[in-house]
């Protein structure tokens, strides 16, 4: 009997799986026990074919046990440990004790990319063991510092290395560069919309949630997409968090430090956005972690979906509980929502007439519940430009994304410097205790806010969200303290928005 270690994923966490293989006499058969899913059960055929290319013929009765027995195992990433366990049981090779192996085998013995390489690397680092991953996963694993990892192109190379016939070179850790994102559209392509531009700059700087309200064709979607080009690069810690999520979801790492941007259509189901399903996989709100979650036509989303977003938006993480178990996913997103001001879309338009009755407008607005509205830091009205404004050729081109991004980046660096010792990355995720203590509110701004908060009937959350936005505005201005003007601007985004 031989035993080799692999992993399986539980949410975004890797759990060690021990693969025990026993071969006894009898008619050839191969059985896998230990709650394998279909992909694991089918590994039988891949593993057998791959071993045959190495001249290893499996005969007799093969029993494969995946321990712990009560943990469901999923995915093809157990192919490699199963194959090595078989090779060891056949006496063809001796496998190093304790090491973690993952990889999906192709019939000719090559190793294919798997999901979960980053969680596996983190587990390997915690256990202090070495890790063997498919060559295609080497890049993402190289970003996890302090792990002894080897990239394996195929089964033959690995077996040769264990026989001492060749040496595998370890994966070298590399820090990725901040590649310039190619903004599409660029902010220089957007005419007018000065207030929306400013709001998005603040949102990008401090990771604040934004609601864009405007008539059809006013450019809400274009603005939201342009936001992508001014987001600050991911910090090292943020990059690792993002990679962990993406690796678990199976999307390949393309390099760079760009934040994710997930646009979700309003027909999306609650499970697809919040996570869940048979094997409890992450939803859009998790895939957009540290990036942007864009919900166009915000009011058209199902009500229960929007309400389900309350907790992840507030806590930056979501706990998905199912019969199969409960899993925690990170969900620190910058929510960009866009909607029309009324059902017909023309409410408040300078030219077109709104044909909605007052009760229609009222019902439309009520689709967004109080708790959700309370979680949106910035209300931005996006007025439609008149045809003559659109067609006129201005003498000045608007500021481009690159220069806005430079400012945002500077503001974010200031935040990192201030908050990283306490474990936070941006103003939006500050907890209450830090907010009151070290946000740097000037005396006049404090007086101004306490005077106005009462008359605006701001909730406790409302006040702290205003403070966070004000902090971002001050950071953009390079000011250590929040002045009265910063507070006033932040407050304007809160109470403005939907034209009344």
């Amino acid at each position, binding site marked *: 009997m031989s035993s080799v270690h692999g992993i399986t994923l539980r949410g975004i966490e890797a759990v060690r799986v021990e693969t025990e293989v026993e071969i*006894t*006499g*009898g*008619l*050839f*058969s*191969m*059985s896998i026990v230990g709650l394998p899913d279909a992909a694991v059960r089918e590994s*039988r055929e891949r593993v*057998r074919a791959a071993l045959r290319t190495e001249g290893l013929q499996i*005969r*007799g*009765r093969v029993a494969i046990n995946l321990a712990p027995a009560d943990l469901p195992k999923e995915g093809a990433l157990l192919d490699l440990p199963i194959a090595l366990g078989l090779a060891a049981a056949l006496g063809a090779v001796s496998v190093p004790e304790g090491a973690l192996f993952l990889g999906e085998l192709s019939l000719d013995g090559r190793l294919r990319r798997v999901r979960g390489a980053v969680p596996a690397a983190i587990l390997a680092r915690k256990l202090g063991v070495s890790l063997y991953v498919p060559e295609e996963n080497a890049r993402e694993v190289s970003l996890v510092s302090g792990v002894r990892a080897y990239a394996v192109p195929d089964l033959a190379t690995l077996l040769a290395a264990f026989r001492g016939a060749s040496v595998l070179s370890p994966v070298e850790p590399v820090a990725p560069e901040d590649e310039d994102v190619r903004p599409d559209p660029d902010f220089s392509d957007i005419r007018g919309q000065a207030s929306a531009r400013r709001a998005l700059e603040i949102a990008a700087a401090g990771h604040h949630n934004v609601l864009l309200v405007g008539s059809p064709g006013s450019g809400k979607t274009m603005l939201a997409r342009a936001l992508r080009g001014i987001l600050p690069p991911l910090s090292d810690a943020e990059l690792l968090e993002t990679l962990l999520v993406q690796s678990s979801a199976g999307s390949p790492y393309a390099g760079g430090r760009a934040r994710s941007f997930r646009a979700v259509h309003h027909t999306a189901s609650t499970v697809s956005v919040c996570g869940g399903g048979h094997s409890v996989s992450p939803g859009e709100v998790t895939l957009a972690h540290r990036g942007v979650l864009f919900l166009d036509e915000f009011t058209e989303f199902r009500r229960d979906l929007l309400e389900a977003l309350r907790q992840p938006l507030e806590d930056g993480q979501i706990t998905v509980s199912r019969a199969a178990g409960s899993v925690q996913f990170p969900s620190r997103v910058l929510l960009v929502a866009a909607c029309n001001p009324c059902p017909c879309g023309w409410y408040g338009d300078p030219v077109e007439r709104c044909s909605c009755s007052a009760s229609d407008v009222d019902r439309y607005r009520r689709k967004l519940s109080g708790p959700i509205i309370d979680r949106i830091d910035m209300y931005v009205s996006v007025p439609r430009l008149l045809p003559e404004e659109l067609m006129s050729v201005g003498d000045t081109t608007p500021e481009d994304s690159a220069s806005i991004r430079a400012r945002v980046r500077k503001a974010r660096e200031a935040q990192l410097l201030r908050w990283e010792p306490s474990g936070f990355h941006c103003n939006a995720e500050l907890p209450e205790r830090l907010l009151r203590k070290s946000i740097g509110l000037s005396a006049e701004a404090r007086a101004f806010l306490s005077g106005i908060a009462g008359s605006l009937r701001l909730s406790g959350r409302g006040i702290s969200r205003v403070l966070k936005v004000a902090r971002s505005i001050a950071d953009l201005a390079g000011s250590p303290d929040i002045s009265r003007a910063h507070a006033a601007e932040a407050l304007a985004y809160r109470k403005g928005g939907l034209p009344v």
Partner: protein
Amino acid sequence: MTAPHLELGRRGEDEAAVLLSRQGFRVLGRNIRNRCGEIDILAMDGDELVVVEVRVRSIGELMSPEDSVGPKKIRKLVRAGTLLVESKNWQGPWRIDLIAMTVDRKGEWNVEHFRDITDGAWRP
């Protein structure tokens, strides 16, 4: 005097046994009967025990010899083989091979050897 098709089958089994030994198999026994059925040839291929089923057809018959072994026959072979292997107290691996033979009008043999016909598809 046996019936012509049984006579043909016996000649085929002789031919198959010769063929197997020429391939390096060690023939241990023939026409071994137990309560689950009959095993045409029992042989050793290296360190693996092989239960060989021989199927013979004259050319022109509708069904080819290999097609005449269906799931029911395979189940029967597995049962008979298991019983035999256990009675002989064999601990190593074993498999079931099929030798499909057709004889043409000139009396020439056309032979195909299928190794391990269960190939993991059979579950204990």
